């Protein structure tokens, strides 16, 4: 009986504890520094004029976009920022800008790959001359991270066998889409693991 009572008390205590954790937004489990965990560790330690931080970040971001500077260089640059002098708003602003920069970096990496893939498939595809017909055939391509084409399937026919066959013939000549090699794995998974190729009879 006593054991049951102790068990009940334990249960109530544990539930109260859990409830307390929930309403404090899990923060009990998080080490203090993890609350700003999206700010890279590399940002710490170096003195800098705090008023110029947002401006500097913007400059770096612009430089990244304009000069194709890799993310690593951005991180190196950001090492010059002193963590201790950040207030919360500055951190938040920085977080947003880093997220945006990462997004733009991914977008740029993907767009470069898309352009390379387009260039290669265009060089292989012998487009039939179907006068004035505005048609398209769509394929789904499944890739391995090595670039190997695991499968390709026609998911939307153009209605013209000759046109579909020409696209199929072009894809049959490609075994690897090497253009995705070297792409960060998460970018690959998000964009190229499975994507669609649309062959169009006319430039839009």
């Amino acid at each position, binding site marked *: 009986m006593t054991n049951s009572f102790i068990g009940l008390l334990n249960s109530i205590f544990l539930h109260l504890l859990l409830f307390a954790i929930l309403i404090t937004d899990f923060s009990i489990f998080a080490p203090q520094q993890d609350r700003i965990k999206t700010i890279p560790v590399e940002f710490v330690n170096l003195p800098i004029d705090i008023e110029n931080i947002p401006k500097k970040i913007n400059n770096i971001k612009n430089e990244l976009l304009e000069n194709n500077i890799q993310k690593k260089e951005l991180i190196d640059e950001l090492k010059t920022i002193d963590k201790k002098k950040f207030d919360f708003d500055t951190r938040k602003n920085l977080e947003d800008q880093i997220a945006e920069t990462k997004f733009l970096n991914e977008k740029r990496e993907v767009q470069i790959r898309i352009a390379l893939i387009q260039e290669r498939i265009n060089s292989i595809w012998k487009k039939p001359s179907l*006068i004035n017909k505005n048609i398209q055939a769509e394929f789904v391509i499944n890739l391995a991270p090595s670039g190997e084409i695991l499968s390709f399937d026609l998911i939307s026919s153009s209605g013209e066998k000759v046109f579909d066959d020409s696209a199929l013939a072009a894809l*049959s000549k490609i075994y690897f889409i090497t253009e995705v090699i070297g792409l960060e794995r998460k970018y690959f998974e998000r964009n190229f693991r499975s994507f669609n190729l649309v062959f169009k009879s006319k430039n839009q």
Partner: protein
Amino acid sequence: MKIFLIFLTFLALSIEAKLKIEISQGSKDLPKIAIVPFKSNMKIGESISMLIQDNLTLFGEFKALPKNEMLSFPSKEENFFYRDWNILNVDYVVIGNFQEENSEFINIEYFVFNISLNKLILRGDVSGNYSEKEKISKVISNRVYKSITGLNGVFDTKIAYILNPSREEYKICISDIDGTDEEVLFESSAPLMSPSWSSDLKKLAYVSFEKGYPEIYMQDLFSGKRESIKTLGLSNSAPVWSPDNKKLAFVMSSSGNPDIYIYNLRNKKISRHTTHYGIDTEPAWSPNSKKLLFTSNRSGSPQIYELTVSSNRIKRVTLDGDYNARASYFPDGKDIVLVHGNNGVFHIGTKKLRSRFINTISKTTLDESPTISPNGNIIIYATKNNSQGYLAGLTLDGKSKFTLPVKFGSVREPAWSPFMN
């Protein structure tokens, strides 16, 4: 609730965000085709395959693999190996053999393979007289072309043109589209102009100045019999046969001002369809014989207009450029080809009827009289080199440009025949 909404948003974004890559240009390389000498006990096997190769490469649409580069010479499906052609980067292979052959009769079996797809795409046979090997090769060429491109072949069509060998020598000639078998239909010391085919391929209409003024004649291609259109006007020109073969559109100047008229070939009555004080000329029928394109200077410079025959309603078609003339419809009736000029430079252009943009497709600068192949894929036009007129052509995809065999004399006003069904 908020978390649920955020989840839904992410879900929607992830569904929307699947990458789509568009491919629309295609390679500049021509499809590579190998025509393997057909297996025959007589010499004709190789000559038939050479004729087919000449046809298929006539307009520069294919690149042929030379015989000395072939690794094997199959003649039947069972002895055909794709690897022999894959290694040579060939796209299509044509093989064939003679099922029957003697000095009078031949029967040929042929096959077309798509190498990239490892697929037999056509198997057929054709027979005929031994003496008709050119005709037989054209039949095979047309079928091979259709199996590869999806378009009807034009290798057995003909072309009419005006040949001007010397100052006072004019001829209306008809030849095969490759320039062979040229025949003179009519010749005169006075100018001849504007040949136009009847859609049944039995007659040709043209303008002759033999009486000192322009008069329209219709000439039977088999009997040679000529018939002129009796009109009240003194100046008649630019006859064009309607695709339904019932009417002839032409230009007549009854009071010094050229307008578009239609001659009904059944009841021989003439109706007037434009009345503007500007010059209206160069009519061209729509594929359904219900509309006409024509050139008019009513706006101050030559521009293209479209006339609905039943209502005489007129719509301006071209807006750009200081010179647009000699328009004709593509077989689909939605696009047109025309001569487009700016500052004295004239190119062949194409234009969608519903769009403003004119796409110039020829590179030479004194181009005139474009004529479209009946399958709509090739344009032949007259151009000049040091005042010598010759015929040049191009494919609509712009991959190929060619000139037709040089004639003795200036060549003008080509008119491509309809399909020879």
